[in-house]
């Protein structure tokens, strides 16, 4: 459905996306990365707003840049807030659906239906300027989905929302993703976010982008396995970290050491449990005061943070 082959996008001297190769099929996919990682640029390339400087993009088998055949099948909800003020959600969504090639009456019908679906039925005739950010976000989502796209691309769709609005919209997008799995024509959902739990909630496959590069992709489990194959970290807080480091070096299992602050020793190892036990017994024998022993964060959030640190050359 969507393939990028060695895609690079350069803006003057700034690299937005760097040599990305990835294939995405039908279903839900999460694009993860911190702010400034290149997610929006990558989505701009996929949704045909930007042309790659190098490499090739194919969406539904065709290049997407300003290609009406491809664009007709894409729904896009950008990250930027909607600053259109006078128009109402009904007028705005109808306008967008008309731009997708629907006649006015059909566009009006679809706009009303979609606004009802996203929970804006009551507020669809209020000017956008009087709506909360969550409501404007719903209006944007309705605009992206009302023409029934085969590829739905959402850029930070839950950013800046309160917990209730976030919960509602995650549910809404999840329902679209589930319906994408069962749709007659295979459909794809791409959600870009810098918050892992948002993407995890969608049960989506993950692609991690950092510094414009795709550093990992797969299911959440596959990414965990990949990180497992790299040394884990044990963080030990004690009053004599340099003495403890000497002792740790004399035991098996430690692959790397670093100090953080005056009282924290971070040890990289592939046998975290065994090494932690050995450190504990050595510390007792040498009468070292250990304040805390903590394993690295094993949640997806932790793994994501780990990938970010590895990419920046910090840590093991």
């Amino acid at each position, binding site marked *: 459905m969507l393939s990028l082959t060695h895609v690079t996008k350069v803006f003057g001297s700034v690299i937005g996306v760097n040599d990305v190769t990835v294939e995405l099929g039908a279903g839900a996919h999460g694009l993860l990365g911190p702010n400034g990682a290149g997610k929006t640029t990558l989505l701009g390339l996929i949704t045909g707003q930007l042309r790659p400087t190098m490499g090739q993009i194919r969406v539904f088998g065709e290049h997407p840049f300003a290609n009406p055949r491809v664009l007709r099948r894409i729904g896009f909800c950008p990250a930027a807030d909607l600053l259109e003020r006078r128009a109402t959600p009904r007028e705005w969504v109808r306008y967008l659906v008309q*731009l997708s090639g629907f006649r006015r009456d059909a566009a009006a019908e679809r706009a009303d239906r979609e606004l009802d679906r996203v929970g804006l039925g009551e507020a669809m005739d209020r000017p956008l300027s009087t709506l909360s950010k969550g409501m404007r976000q719903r209006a944007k989502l309705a605009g992206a989905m009302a023409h029934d796209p085969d590829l739905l691309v959402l850029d930070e769709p839950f950013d800046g929302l309160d917990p209730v609005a976030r919960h509602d919209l995650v549910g809404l997008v999840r329902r679209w993703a589930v319906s994408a799995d069962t749709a007659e024509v295979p459909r794809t959902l791409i959600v870009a976010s810098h918050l892992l739990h948002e993407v995890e909630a969608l049960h989506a496959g993950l692609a991690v982008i950092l510094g414009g590069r795709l550093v990992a992709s797969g299911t959440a489990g596959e990414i965990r396995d990949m990180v497992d194959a790299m040394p884990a970290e044990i963080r030990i807080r004690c009053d004599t970290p340099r003495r403890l480091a000497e002792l740790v070096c004399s035991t098996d299992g430690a692959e790397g050491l670093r100090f953080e602050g005056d009282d924290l020793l971070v040890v990289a190892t592939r046998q975290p449990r065994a090494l932690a036990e050995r450190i504990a017994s050595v510390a007792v024998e040498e009468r070292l005061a250990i304040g805390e022993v903590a394993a690295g964060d094993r949640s997806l959030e932790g793994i994501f943070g780990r990938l970010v640190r590895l990419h920046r050359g910090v840590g093991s």
Partner: protein
Amino acid sequence: MIATDAGQADASFRTAVLSPTLAVMSFQLGRLLSRQRLLLAGLGVLFPAAVMLAVRRTVAEGLDRDLAVTMIYALVPEAVCMLGLLVTMCPAVADELERGTWIHIAVRPGGRRALLVGTYLAAVIWTSAVAILAACLAVLVARVPQPLPLIGILAVLVVLSTLGRAALFALPAVILPKRALVASVAVALVVEYLAGFIPAVINQATVSLRLRSLLVEWMGWRQKLPVEMQLLIDPQPAWVQIAAVFGLAAVLLVVAVKILDFRQFPPSVEL
């Protein structure tokens, strides 16, 4: 595209081109009905009349008809139309970038073209309406004899002026969206008021030459004009002048559409 229900995009001219263009036009006209824009329109309508009133009061024996027509021509099809288009056509792309709506439009099939052509039509309609009202009021205030035929002439000149110059301003709007206003003023001065008054081939590609020539022909001034002034008009018949304005507008608009088709705005520009 597969038809999934009534009204679905089927790539016909109506749904692929006409419907999106009319949607943009209607949406832009809606935006132009804001309080600030209506206030601006009011100023545009009153300004030429105010000038004509001031001039009439200073001339005790009454205004000469030809002088009054020349002044109204300079004030309305030239000044009011130019100012109206600077407000409505120049920000065609910049406004969308600022409102964060460009990205919503650029991702729609034919959205870019519909945006430019729809905004062009809205600018022509809004500016023409303001300028025609301004012309009517100015003619009445100046107490020009036989006002109705004159209003008819001025209305046609206004429509031709907006059609041609909106297309001219479409180029800076798509090439330099963030500096479109400054660039358009420069284009207006250099193309319309410098090149347009050079008696050479270059002025053939300006709207001002066509409008002047039409005014001279329709007012029956050709025989009265001194020889040196005749160099500043085109002697060809009215239909040639009108066709030239339409041709020029079409060429400029097609070039602007082609440029916009290939424009890319980095995410930071949109945000």
